[in-house]
């Protein structure tokens, strides 16, 4: 009996090759992300100092976490920062993109200039702003002094430290700007032409065409910004290390301190999972709310 060679459909062959090519990624994901996540889940129920064997303590770390005022303080700092910086970053990025989408001279130059901060690493940005915020020699207080005002001790006075980080986040709004710019350029010009024929002003076009068309981009930036806010770390680590007097103790700094300074890896793992839960819930809420305010051209609402 002769063996008949099975003809493999082209799509299946492509699939095989596809899976073969992503296998290294799958291995990397399993070894460096998924398994460590599982391990950190286990650690969150243990007392582990990174040297001795983890000791099972049940929900003790979670109880400690919810009863520690320091944890709520760090969460409050992060939320306060996020509530201000997130809308501020979205609005600034969008307005910049909107302006740079107009026909203005040297547009490529301005786009590059506003995008530059997004190209610089957080650590370098923090070092740069550290110099700018210096109360004696920094340019911000120099300008204030020139205007006859007394500049505060930006990084030393707990009343002002959070403002420094808000400045920093707005300064980096150019990163979002590029995404908005591509969104703006993909809005069909026919919509604007029709609106103009109907006698719409520029402002009406912005409100009734541009912003609704841009909602998927807002949605994307909101999700990314939300996650970024709760992961905020490099800038406060370099600028203030959580000080003065814990006034900039962002959640991630608090977590880092327990993991690597105090070597409470079990407690830090519990903090990490709580952070994961917060981000997950907020992201799901945003996704859920998107049905109400995000407009997709191809989507037909029921």
């Amino acid at each position: 009996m002769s063996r008949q060679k099975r003809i493999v459909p082209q799509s299946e062959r492509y699939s095989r090759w596809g899976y073969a090519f992503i296998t290294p990624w799958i291995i990397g994901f399993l070894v460096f992300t998924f398994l460590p996540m599982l391990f950190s889940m286990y650690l969150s129920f243990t007392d582990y100092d990174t040297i001795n064997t983890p000791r099972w303590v049940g929900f003790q770390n979670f109880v400690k976490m919810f009863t520690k005022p320091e944890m709520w303080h760090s969460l409050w700092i992060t939320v306060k920062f996020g509530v201000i910086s997130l809308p501020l970053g979205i609005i600034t990025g969008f307005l910049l993109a909107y302006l740079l989408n107009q026909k203005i001279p040297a547009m490529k130059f301005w786009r590059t200039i506003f995008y530059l901060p997004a190209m610089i690493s957080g650590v370098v940005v923090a070092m740069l702003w550290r110099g700018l915020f210096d109360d004696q020699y920094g340019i911000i207080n120099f300008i204030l002094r020139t205007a006859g005002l007394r500049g505060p001790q930006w990084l030393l006075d707990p009343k002002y430290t959070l403002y420094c980080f808000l400045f920093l986040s707005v300064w980096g709004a150019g990163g979002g700007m590029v995404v908005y710019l591509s969104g703006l350029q993909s809005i069909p010009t026919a919509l604007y032409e029709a609106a103009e024929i109907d006698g719409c002003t520029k402002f009406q076009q912005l409100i009734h065409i541009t912003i609704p068309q841009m909602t998927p981009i807002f949605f994307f930036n909101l999700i990314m910004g939300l996650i970024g806010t709760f992961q905020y770390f490099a800038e406060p680590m370099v600028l203030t290390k959580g000080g003065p007097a814990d006034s900039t103790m962002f959640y991630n700094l608090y977590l880092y301190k327990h993991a690597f300074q105090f070597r409470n890896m079990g407690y830090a793992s519990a903090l990490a999972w709580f952070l994961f839960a917060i981000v997950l819930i907020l992201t799901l809420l945003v996704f859920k709310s998107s049905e109400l305010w995000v407009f997709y051209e191809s989507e037909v609402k029921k």
Partner: protein
Amino acid sequence: MRKALTFVLVALLLMSTFMVASCSKGGSSSSSGSQAKTPAKEKVKIQIMVGFGTGTDPSQIAVHEELQAEFNNTVGKEKGIEIEFLTVPYSDAATKFTTLVAAGMTPDICGPVGVMGVAQFIDEWLDLTPYIEKDKIDLSVYDDQLVESNRYNVDGQSKLVGLPIGYYPSALFYNEDIYDRAGLDYPPEEWGTADWTYDKLYEQARQMTLDMWGSDANDPDFDMDNVVQYGYDGTDWSPWRAWVGKFFDENGKSVALGMTDDYKTATMNSPEWVRAFAELERMIYKEKVRPRSDAAAGASLFGDADPLGSNRLGVWETFSWMSYAFESWDANFSWNIGAIPSMDGHVVSATNIDTFVMCRSAKHPDEAWEVYKWLFSDKVYSRLNHNYGGIPAMKNLQAQWLDEQKAERPNINWQVLLDAGAYADNPNNESWVPGYSEVWNEMEFAMASIISGLYDTPEQVAEDLNDEVQDILDEYWASK
């Protein structure tokens, strides 16, 4: 689709098999290799981890490399031991060490390491007492107090974790130019003089603290928000316990520990601790002689690393390991060293002490001890100590240290540093307590609250601190 998944699974299986195989192959070959060779001929490698303190500068690494080559070519050859210095940056040392221990690759010896480094990993160090007794090591060649500073009573067990290599007392480093401009007498060179008190130092410091319009801190119009030169700084550069160690209880005992001797009850709300906080408050807000800033953020007026070097500070109470800055001070102003004043009749010089420790979970303690003895032999000890810049804890080398300092900078009162040894703090400002890093963090937070102005009263700061530390102690003992 199912076939594709099977394909991926098979690929994963194959790759993991290769990985496991290659790992186990490496493992078995090394073990079989070691079995194949004659065990007696196999050299034991002893790793010395450097990074917990000084010793990481290129010039210092070069000395370590010289010593490594010297040992491996002489003593090491005879005894079948090879040493290797493993240098890591100070900021990474703790993480690196824990990783090595967790991976079963514990270094054999760590050093130079200060009291704080010892305290952070107190359970990881070997008790040297049996080795010292076995080899009849003469401890009387060292300053007794420095030897004792390495003896710990942890969870009821006493252990000597290391021998002292050098120490760095604190003293007053002052800018003579600023003193001269203010028309003031320099701080005394002698320790314990009756009229040299903190009140007297504040009096001097007020005259040296100037605002941008030239008024000093005695002037009613003095503008404390626009200060361009301060009279005194110190506390936020040292641990809080370096300051609180100047306060003594009614039994004449320093309250630096902040807890009972059994480490179970926090006493950081005691009248002495409240007084220590009140005195810090006085310095900043009443006397106005020191910056109102947080050490973590760095006082911008002084720069990050060297307040005295800014040439905008009269007196800096700090440790002698600031020797790395002497050269830049020489270039910019005249400076000198004076004795620390008394607080309520007690004179205390907070002191940092360096040692080498042997790691408990290392694989070759006996060979490590042979290396340890070699490091502490007279000639090598002298070279190591010279390399780190501390005052030798070995008494017979102290006169030589003094001569060397005098030869290099004849105008400096080096004797002040040597004499500081008699006033070294006890308990040491960095000494071990349960939940070390967390307790430390809470103390620094309390200090920063006052420096930053985020507090109600010193009593409340002390009370809050005591509650936090008591929680940490309770948690520590509950886990035992």
